[in-house]
């Protein structure tokens, strides 16, 4: 595998993760794009910084797949904004994404935390 393929894998991982993160954020209630960015940053303790260049394509893609729905509403600060809401289909997708994520974490964990003797046998 060359460098390019590693890069490709990372993108895929992030892309799948971003979808999951967005859907999870919307679980807490309808939110606009800016709100999603803020929520992710706050909840991750300023670690996750989502690029708008990834967020908006992702939101529009999720909408096309009917995992989220959008509508125009007034925000608390009387700003007209597009609010996204998770759909039933989106919730199902979130559950399956989460399951996959947990399996990956577990698999990576069992590789990373393996004891030296076991690996030699």
């Amino acid at each position: 595998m060359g460098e390019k393929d590693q890069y490709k894998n990372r993108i895929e991982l992030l892309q799948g993760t971003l979808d999951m993160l967005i859907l999870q954020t919307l679980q807490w209630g309808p939110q606009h794009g800016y709100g999603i960015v803020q929520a992710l940053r706050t909840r991750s303790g300023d670690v996750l910084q989502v690029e708008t260049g990834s967020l908006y394509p992702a939101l529009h893609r999720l909408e096309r797949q009917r995992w989220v729905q959008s509508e125009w509403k007034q925000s608390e600060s009387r700003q007209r904004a597009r609010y996204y809401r998770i759909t039933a289909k989106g919730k199902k997708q979130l559950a399956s994404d989460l399951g996959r994520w947990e399996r990956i974490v577990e698999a990576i964990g069992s590789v990373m935390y393996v004891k030296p003797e076991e690996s030699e046998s």
Partner: protein
Amino acid sequence: MKWSFGFQRRKRELQEEIDAHLQMAIADRVARGETEESARQAAEREFGNIPLVQDVTRDMWGQASLEQLGRDVRYALRQLRKSPGFTITATAMLAVAICANSTVFSWIDGTMLRPIPGARDTSELVSLQRGERTFSPTPPFSYLDYRDLREQNHTFAGILAYHHDWITLTGGAQPERVYIANVSANYFDVLGIKPMLGRFFLPDEESRPAIPSVVLGYSLWKTRYAADPAIVGKAIEIARHPVTVIGVAPEGVTGAMPGLREDLWVTLDPLGTEVWRMTHRSGGAVWLNVIGRLRPGVSRGQAAQDLDTVMRHIVAAYPNDHLGDNRITLDPLWRSPFGANGYIAATLPILLAFAAVVLLLTCANVATLTLVRFVSRRRELAIRQSLGANRMQLVRQMVMEGAVLSIVAGAVALVLTSWTSKTFAWFFPANSNPLILNGSMDHKVVIGIAVSSLLVGMLCGVLPAWRSSHAPAVEVLKAESASISGGSRNRKLLSALVVAQIALSLPLLLCSGLFLRTLRNLASANPGFEQDHILTASVGANIVGYSHDEEHVIRHKILDRVSALPGVKVATLTDWIPMTLSHKGVDAYPEGYVPHPHESLQVYDAEVAARYFESLHIPILEGREFTPEDDEKAPRVLIVDQTAARRYWPGQDPLGKRLRVWGSLFTVVGVAKNSTHIFVNESPEPMVYMSLFQAGYETIVQVETEGNPADLAPAVENTIHEIDPRLPVFDVRPMRESTQMASSLAVIQSVLAGMFALTGLILAVTGIYGVVAYRTQMRTHEIGIRVALGASRVDVLRLVLLQGLWLTAIGLALGLAFALGLTRIIVRLLYGIGAHDPVTVVSVVMILGGMSLLACYLPAHRAMRRNPVTAIREL
């Protein structure tokens, strides 16, 4: 466009969404104490490149964007321009294949699908036939039977009757022969046609109206009466009888018999001179063709049952007028045995099926070429894929190339068809019927072309595109010559396409071979009469208004004068010419003969003068031929053919036996050898000949000549005109020309099937050549190595030939199975040859196999002669 508005709206909304994002970010920063200006800058910096975000987001909206469609089309055009050879060849092949389909379809459209031009909803119309089902039956109903059926049925919205024949329009500067129809008063109502001028007939005008009236056809009104807008109410002269014009039919209306043109219409007995015909139920009073319009919701079966019930009552009331078979059968007009469709319905649909096979074959060929192109563009595709194009996008762009090809091909085919649709009429030789058969180019044909194009686009674009898009980008980019031949998936598809082309072209070749041999058999078959030194000329003595006696005098004078012409061996008269698709029939009741149940007593008949059999070289097996003495004053006599003799008097001497025809008894004085009536391949039907001077109506002069009959035509015509210049003389032509009519459909079959088969052969052979050549070229490197390692040239030849051989063998085997199954549908169209004729099958397989082998040999030969060193260095 609504759709493009949607796109603009979404673009605006995205802009607004991004603006809102920025506003909120700025507001937050300002709330944290930043200045308005620095907050804005920071927010915009944080957001990133706005146009890029918009662009990437818009990509997520998917293919439903005009912009993208335009981009794809431009891309496809660019790719096609890059390989003009492929583009032109593929477009031309597809256009020809689509045109083959649309041409045959336009012929079907102009005949079977539009059986009665101008009529309302012809799918509700059915033609009525009484008795045994035959091709080109004679008019089956008497007026009284027709009237009873019309008045006593419960399933028809209306039933019309008509009878048509030639007549002469007199009273103008020039007499003109026209085709006139005697019709029931409801004729135009049942057809659903409204007059263009004046009115049509009223119910009480059906027989013996107060004023004889006529309805003119549009083209007659235009040509003979200069489109006179005040023609209604004026009197014209038909066969020297004055009649009043009451209306003009709209343009395009040509009457109720498919394929024939009626010029004008009168009611059934406009002059009151045909009383006998209107008041009898049998013999010469059986003269009407009948068409009914079913009530909505009534099926043909129900209607036939209903009419059968009425008919049974009629038969019970008048048993002597209805001996033989009286069952009623109904046919939709697209296959009505009355008129041209009966013949056409047996041929054209089969030719359309052949054309469809040609189209499939062409698609397979173009798909092969397309696949090869895509394989050679693998690197380009892979690069595009790794640059971020997803698979769907690639497929879409490749499909677009197929779509562009098929649309252009469809457009070309449309232009071609507008011409080829009119070539149908070419196939019918000059004849004595007012035939108006031709193809038509209307919306149905255009839709047909569009559907074919769509199909072509799918087969030639989608299939190869889908296959090619599977290639994993990384491997392609890494891989060099070793795997460039396209991977095993594409190799299999290519092989399958080649096999399909061979398998599809074999049935085409076999059918066309069978048709060609049928045509040859028909041409060389002996019809049982002389065709080569015979000239016939119709004399319209009966249609210009002469009295019966005057007509007789004229006939005698014609016989005397024409016989005396130099170059004339024998001159005689008849009222019928065999093998011209025309057919006369009468009900003949042999004395003392008990018919089987449902046996038809209708026989073919012809009225002929003395020396008729001599002129045609038809042997009289027993008794004598007619003589000049068999005239009106003499006892009625007739001559039967062998079939009639065997049917009615098996094992007995037919001479002296008597038959009742038209109510009089005729004595058999001779037995003639069987000869062909309509088709060489007909099953023999009984025929009776009567003396023209005892029973004839029309007059056709028939001359046996010493030399070329066409040379004598002017002399014969002049002689008749010398007797009376007003006598119309028409259809003067050699017998050979007239009888071509009988094989016109066989000619259509073989010409079209032959062209289709040739196309198929070329496609299949170029297809296998292309694939083998391409594969060999891809293996140049490998072959070079093999030769360098010691493989002989013969080994190379075998290597390349073998793969072509395999493909050919599989294709031939599949094609043979397909072909032998398919020929069953053409059995009825063959003559003198079996559908599985071994000679034809073997020669067709040899031709196709041989050509394919040759196509494989050429690239193999080239590979064999390559210098291995250059071959290895290449690439």
